[in-house]
Structure formats: C-alpha cells, structure tokens
C-alpha cells in the first residue's frame, strides 16, 4: 500500500463572503498523477494554493506525508510551479542557471551560499529537462515551452516528492505540450514523483493522468479517467453544456 502524500479533509475556503471551496476531501497516494479539472472559477487554483501552503483554509485539515499542516516543516519536499504567465516578469535579468538555483534557496537555509555541489545539482536538473546547453541564456529569451521546462527544473532541483503544477501548458504550442507531457511521464518513472496538476483542458488531462478530480466548489469525482468519462460527473460539475463539449471530443 503506497504512503499517503496528501490528505485533505473537509476543506472550506472563502474569498470575502464568496464560498470557493465547499467541504472538499481527498487523499493522494505516493506515485499518483492526479489531474484536477473544473470550469473557470471552480476553485481548482485556490485548492492548489492551499496545498502549496500559500492560502489557509477557513476550516478543514491538510496533512502532508502524514503530518498536519501546522506542524509541517519540510516544505522543500513540495514544489510548486505557478502559472508562469502571471507570476514572472519577462525583463528580469536572470540566466537559466540563476533561475534554477533559486529552487535551492529554501533547502540551503538562511545564511548559506550556494557552492560547487549546488551548481552541480542545477546542471543535473537542467539536463533532466533537456536544457543543459542554455544555462547562460536569459530567461526572457526562451520560448514559452522552454520557460516552462526551466520552471520544472527549478522545482525539481531540490528533489521534491510532490510536484504541484498550475495550468502548466497555458501559452505553450501543441508540439511543446506533447513533449512536456512526455517529460512529466519520464520524471514520474525515474524519480517516483507524485504529480498534482490543475488544468482546464479536460480532454488532454484525462489522457495523461492516472486519476482525475473534478472540482466545481465541491468535489464531484475522484477516480481513474476511464470512469470519469462513463459516469455523469461532467454534466453535474459543468452544467448541461459540458455534454456537448464531451461529445465533440469523440
């Protein structure tokens, strides 16, 4: 039986007076690849931010690797890749190498500077996403797909056990998207990573992941993708329009 990496119990969250997450419970086991899907404004990014420790739920408990959030200190075991379009500034004068090095900030701890071992880790991490040759290029000079790989390399450099991805393929072309999913599959196999990915792209997600969670304020479904299509969850979570969208896909 694999170890539970993440346990959510009765999570509720409000933005002001607006209920965004209503009584969401789920458990993610080690080695899983979970896709969280749902319509716009369904609270999926909010849920990911709660898991990343950026937001505090109004009620409910979060456990990481069996430890309650309040007592959890090993944040380096969890890596978060934000939606790159929103969180970073393209004119920033950082090279790819410098960008990936930031991923080691927390594990180095305060007052310690990166040395030879850290530079080695950065090179290895860049090599694992296939960007070793671009180490000295500025981050703003890369394509969207390459930048996404850099952020994956940064997330991986501290050897996390759980990788959180928020809409990782937004603004990336179809070809780069495919290569990106190949990379994720490789990393999961080689490193035994547990992956949690938020996406609005149901069709693609269901093809790639091992389990799907369908969210729209409440959790409507959590299980293998095959069951996701056969059950009537899409209709419930998305409303009747989803049925049309579903049929178009096939």
């Amino acid at each position, binding site marked *: 039986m694999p170890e539970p990496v993440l346990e959510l119990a009765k999570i509720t969250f409000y933005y002001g007076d607006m209920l965004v997450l209503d009584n969401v419970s789920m458990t993610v086991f080690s080695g899983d690849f979970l896709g969280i899907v749902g319509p716009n404004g369904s609270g999926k990014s909010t849920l990911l931010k709660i898991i990343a*420790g950026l937001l505090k739920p109004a009620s409910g408990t979060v456990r990481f690797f069996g430890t309650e959030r309040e007592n959890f200190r090993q*944040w380096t075991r969890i890596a978060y890749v*934000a939606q790159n379009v929103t969180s970073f500034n393209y004119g920033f004068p950082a090279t790819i190498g410098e960008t990936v090095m930031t991923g080691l900030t927390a594990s180095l701890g305060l007052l310690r500077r990166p040395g030879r071992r850290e530079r080695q880790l950065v090179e290895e991490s860049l090599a694992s996403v296939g960007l070793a040759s671009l180490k000295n290029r500025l981050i703003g000079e890369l394509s969207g797909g390459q930048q996404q790989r850099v952020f994956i390399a940064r997330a991986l450099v501290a050897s996390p056990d759980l990788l959180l991805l928020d809409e990782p393929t937004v603004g990336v072309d179809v070809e780069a998207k495919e290569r990106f999913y190949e990379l994720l599959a490789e990393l999961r196999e080689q490193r035994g990573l547990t992956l949690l990915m938020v996406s609005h792209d149901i069709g693609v997600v269901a093809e790639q992941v091992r389990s799907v969670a369908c969210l729209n304020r409440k959790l409507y479904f959590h299980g293998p993708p095959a069951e996701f299509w056969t059950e009537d969850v899409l209709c419930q979570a998305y409303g009747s329009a989803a049925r049309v969208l579903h049929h178009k896909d096939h």
Partner: protein
Amino acid sequence: MFDFWAYAFMQRAYFAGLIVAILCPTIGIYLVLRRLSMIGEMFAHVSLAGVALGIFTGVYPLATALGLSLGAAVALETLRRTYRVFTDLAIAIIISAGLSLAVVLIGLSRALTVDLHSYLFGSVIAISPQDLRLVAVVGLLVVIFVLLFQKELFYVAFDEEVARSSGIPVDMLNLLFVVATALTISVSMRVVGILLVSSLITIPVAAALQVGRSFRSTTLLAYIFSVFSVICGLFFSYHANLAPGGSIVLTAVALFVFAAGYRKIFAAGGKLLAHTDLSRRSEEEGLQANVAAAKDY
C-alpha cells in the same frame, strides 16, 4: 588638478560618496526589479519632512530624518496590507503626507533656508565628521543585511509566490528590506540631496539592465556605474562649483544613455543571430521529423 584631496571636507565627501555609491545600487537593484522604484521617492519626501523637523526643533536633522523614515516604513507595510491591490496608492499617500508635513514645517521657520538648501541639493562642504560616521555605520548595516539574505532577496524579487510556497519568510524579509531602504535613503541624501537621491537608486540599475546578461553581471555593472557617477560627479562639483547631486546624477544619466545606445546596436546584431539560430533549429527539427517519418514506414 587633484589639489582637492588636501581638504578634509573633500576627503569626507569622497568617503561618504563612495559608501553611498555602493549602498544605492545594493538596494536599488531589488527595488527596480520588484517595480517599487517609487519607494525611493517616497522615503526622500519623508526624509525632507524629517530634516525640516530636525532643523525646526534643533535636533540633528539626519537623526530625525532616519526616525521619520523608519516610521514611514512601518506605515507602508501596514497600508500595503490594507490596500493589497494598490501598493502604489499606499506609496502615494505617504509621499503626500511627507511632503505636506515638510511644507508646513518649512513655512513655520523662515530661518532654516540655508541649511535646508544643502539637504535638498546635496553639499560637498557640509558633510561633518558626525555625518560621515553615521553614513559609514548605516552603510555597513545595510550591506551586511543584503549580503546575508542575497539569495532570498533575489528569489523573492524573481517570484514572490513560489518563494513563499517553498517556506521562505517573505513577510519578514519584505519588512527588513523596506527598513534597509529607509536607512539607505536617509543617509544618501546628505551627499546627493533629497531631490535626487532616488535617482541614484534607480538610474545606475536602469543603465546596468540595458547591458547585463545575468543577475550577477547586472549587479556588478550597477555598482561600476554608480561609483563612476559619484567619483566624476564630485570631481565636477568641486572644479566647476556645481551642486554635487546634480553633477552625480547627470553623469549617471549620461551613462544610461550610452548603455541604452549600446544595447540598441548590440540588440540589433543579437536579433539577427537569434533569427539564424532559430531557423537553423527549425530546419534541424524538420529533418529529424522526416527521419522519424521514414523510420515509420
């Protein structure tokens, strides 16, 4: 030509100037990259109120400027929490408060104009041994702070949200950084003057951003530009009897224009290169795709 070195006041001006030249880009690089350049302007206005208060009450003006700036740093962090979306609004409010307080205090005492003049425009002859000591101590504190937390400051400037999620104490770091900024500006204004202190924070960094090819090289260039501006500016100031703030910042602006021009020429060449690079790559990829397709058959 170098007879100015014989004067103790000129030596003090150069020592203080060099400390300030190191200090300003040390803080400036993070301010500019976080798009918070206006915070420099804010502390300058608050410092003006502090200086006016000091002269008015007969207290050492740099001390009152420091005190008031620290108060503004705390006010800024509080206001920022209230107006999360509108950080610039918090800055605008404090700028207004600082400037209006300064105007009222200056109006109250008409005798302070001469002294105030040296704070507004910077002064070479006015730097006392006491000023130099304060500049040195504060400068040392700020440089030590930034050296200790360099990688954290860089991470937070680059990607605050992800830094926070990895367990970096972002709020504590932000507060300390704003305090370090307040300290830097209060002591720097003695040399460059209140009106121009935020320029020395931003312009050498802006020039370095034009030509830097990494964070490391950008930081290094910002230091070089800043130190060069202060040395040249003070030199011109002494020989042509100019206000030092003006000649220092004019030198920095000239460097910025050169850097921007250099980038324009260099970037045009760079684009050409990038273009050929890209077309070669797509050709290669096309070839690989063909090979792969051939294998399929």
